[in-house]
């Protein structure tokens, strides 16, 4: 992945591409591309680096969250220098993310993971479509549009693919609320049990 990143930076110096490290043992690192550069980076990956196959497109919903970080600072208290550890809470704004999994059949290499992030989760949810670059992304971008509500600018046929057209929600978003339409559930989850109990008491 490092070579790919260096090749992109050498060929497209204006493009913003940052590595996203995966600290888990699988170490599947990925590249985060600025949405305005995505089309140029994708075409470079396909035409110059041989990433001719996009196997998977998916989405991630990042809600706004607080990150607690431990910061060590030095302070002189009463003439003695001390190290003080502090926990600092930092707000990370929410966004939606699209993930592309790329392989090169010609070079027998892969997996390269490409990511794009939207500005926020409400109104600024547009990313450029990579369907013109990899035709196989067409249905999967429609699925991401359907389930996450990410708008793909330049997609040839951006319609819902799984849910019906009249549906207004995006079920894979973390704040999606499922319709209250079952009386019991085979494996009792507390949420459903509480809902059914409330409904039974209301009707009694």
């Amino acid at each position, binding site marked *: 992945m490092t070579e790919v990143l260096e090749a992109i930076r050498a060929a497209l110096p204006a493009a913003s591409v940052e590595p996203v490290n995966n600290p888990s043992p699988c170490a599947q690192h990925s590249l985060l591309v600025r949405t305005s550069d995505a089309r140029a980076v994708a075409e470079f990956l396909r035409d110059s680096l041989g990433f001719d196959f996009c196997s998977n497109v998916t989405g991630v919903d990042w809600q706004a969250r607080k990150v607690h970080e431990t910061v060590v600072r030095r302070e002189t208290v009463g003439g003695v220098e001390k190290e003080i550890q502090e926990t600092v809470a930092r707000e990370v704004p929410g966004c939606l993310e699209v993930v592309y999994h790329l392989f090169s059949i010609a070079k027998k290499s892969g997996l390269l993971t490409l990511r794009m992030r939207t500005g926020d989760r409400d109104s600024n949810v547009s990313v450029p479509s990579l369907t013109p670059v990899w035709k196989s992304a067409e249905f999967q971008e429609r699925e991401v549009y359907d389930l996450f509500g990410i708008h793909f600018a330049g997609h040839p046929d951006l319609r819902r693919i799984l849910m019906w057209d009249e549906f207004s929600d995006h079920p894979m978003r973390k704040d999606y609320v499922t319709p209250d*339409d*079952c*009386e019991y559930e085979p494996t009792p989850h507390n949420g459903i049990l509480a809902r059914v109990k409330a409904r039974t008491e209301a009707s009694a």
Partner: protein
Amino acid sequence: MLDEDLRADLQKRGIFVASFEDLYNWGRKNSLWPLQFGLACCAIEMIATAAARFDMARFGAEVFRPSPRQADMMIIAGTVTKKMAPLVVRLYNQMPEPKYVIAMGACAISGGPFKAGYNVLKGIDRYIPVDVSIPGCPPRPEALLEGLIKLQEKIAGQRLFGPGRARHADAGNPADYPVPAYGAHDLEPPLNPAVFKPQLLRRDAA
């Protein structure tokens, strides 16, 4: 009605006595043409049931019809998604009376393993009357045959006249059922209260 002992006695003497209802039901129960459509993995078992090894033709139900106009029964074989549910109800409405429904497998009965899902109908009995439910995930072909035999028994016992007669023989019963519409969050209405009576599961505290 004829006394059963007298009927058996007469039959021993070579005289076969039957009511019109018996003859009529005997004829139609042994020639049930299913509507040919499958929704999920249960359909694979349904296909196996119809094929050589299990041979549904032994019970007179091998003529799978691709048109609802020619079908007597509908095997709901598989998960009914909310996107598919209006189409299933419409197919049921297009079938001529008398018509029967077999809900095959956990999904068609209640949503099955997908019961907590946002996109799965929690049982087709929310919209159309179901005659036989076959549990299983998916049910084995033997189970489908057992379900078919149960349906034949039900048909054989149906009265055509008088009180307690079959659903289709009563002009007061609806011939078709409202097709749900695609709503912004769910199907509208989410169930047909004339067909579906919710049963609450009781989990008493131990």
